[in-house]
């Protein structure tokens, strides 16, 4: 999921990465909407709010919303910076760093919310900022390593692309085009995963409250350990195969007598 880069990624790699991260983004967005009354996985709405607050002259809100947008921007910037400046040979580690940071952000919100949060406005604003930073990190990572074909924290562009590609399928020429069919499949998986994450978060956040962020962190862990487990599993299978083949080879002892 994380090791491969750009065009060397298969459809399966993109679907796995897209679905898992979209699932967590859907959960983060709905959980933050319930707990903080604010969206945290997309910034389109925040741009609209920023414009509205500037027009009204509510400078405190202008500063808050601007900071939120900046956090998302900073997250995406850092992810892409890590990827383009990172070592190609250790791509797994380079690509893991934004996700590890994202997990730290989400866990911080979970722990702070569960143990310390006294619901002041400043705490709410900071936690929303931390979650936007986390979503920026995630979106920047998935977009960069997939050559900008996987974006998982917002669905505006995805819905547009899905609609455009579905309309292409009305023509036989495009139905026979594997790239178009693959794109529809990828976008559908991402949209479905985001929605599923949102529905699950919506159902459990009232009971779990801030511990829902621990559940979200687990999905990030799954993305992180998937590649490692695959490497170890492949190595283990290879070793076993070698052992079996060695044991099947007839022993050529020194029968010089």
């Amino acid at each position, binding site marked *: 999921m994380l090791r491969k880069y750009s065009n060397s990624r298969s459809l399966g790699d993109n679907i796995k990465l897209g679905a898992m991260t979209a699932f967590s983004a859907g959960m983060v967005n709905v959980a933050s909407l319930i707990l*903080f*009354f*604010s969206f945290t996985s997309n910034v389109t709405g925040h741009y609209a*709010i920023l414009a509205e*607050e500037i027009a009204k*002259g*509510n*400078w*405190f*809100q*202008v*500063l*808050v*919303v601007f900071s939120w947008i900046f956090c998302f921007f900073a997250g995406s910037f850092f992810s892409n910076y890590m990827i383009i400046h990172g070592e190609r040979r250790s791509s797994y580690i380079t690509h893991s760093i934004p996700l590890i940071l994202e997990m730290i952000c989400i866990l911080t919100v979970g722990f702070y919310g569960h143990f310390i949060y006294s*619901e*002041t*406005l400043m705490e*709410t*604003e900071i936690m*929303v900022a931390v979650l936007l930073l986390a979503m920026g990190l995630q979106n920047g990572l998935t977009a960069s390593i997939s050559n900008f074909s996987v974006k998982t924290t917002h669905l505006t562009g995805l819905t547009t692309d899905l609609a455009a590609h579905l309309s292409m399928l009305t023509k036989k020429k495009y139905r026979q085009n594997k790239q178009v069919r693959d794109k529809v499949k990828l976008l559908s998986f991402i949209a479905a995963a985001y929605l599923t994450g949102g529905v699950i978060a919506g159902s459990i956040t009232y009971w779990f409250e801030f511990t829902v962020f621990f559940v979200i962190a687990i999905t990030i862990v799954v993305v992180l350990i998937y590649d490692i487990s695959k490497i170890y599993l492949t190595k283990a299978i290879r070793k076993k195969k070698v052992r079996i083949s060695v044991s099947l080879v007839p022993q050529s002892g020194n029968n010089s007598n």
Partner: protein
Amino acid sequence: MIFSVYILSGNMEHPEKNLIGTWKEVSWHYEKVDKTEDGEFFKEIARDELKDEIAKNLVIHKSEEWTFEQNADLLLTGEDKEDKKLNWRLKGRGHILKLKYDNDKFEVYQIRELNRNKLVLHFENDIHARGIVRIEFEKKK
């Protein structure tokens, strides 16, 4: 950027600071689907049965003065009702007022306007006056 933050900080009004104090209800309005003859979307609700009907299931029912305290307590007082003590918190970017009572119950109001002298709250309602109800307050000196 630092300069713009400095400029902004001089003109900023923190919502929590603005809210603290005693607010007196001035008027209740409900949103009309169509504009009235005088071109207004909101129509004033007389302090009568309709207001009672709208607010009867709300914790703010028959409150006339709201006192927001620094420690997050909210004291609701009215002439013909017992005083009520709740917990208040601002959410989002300071545009949501969450009132908690009886441990786990809460009501949410949208803050449409808040400055040192004026507070306007909106909430959705579908009893009789279908649409959005707007409560206007002014700060007691």
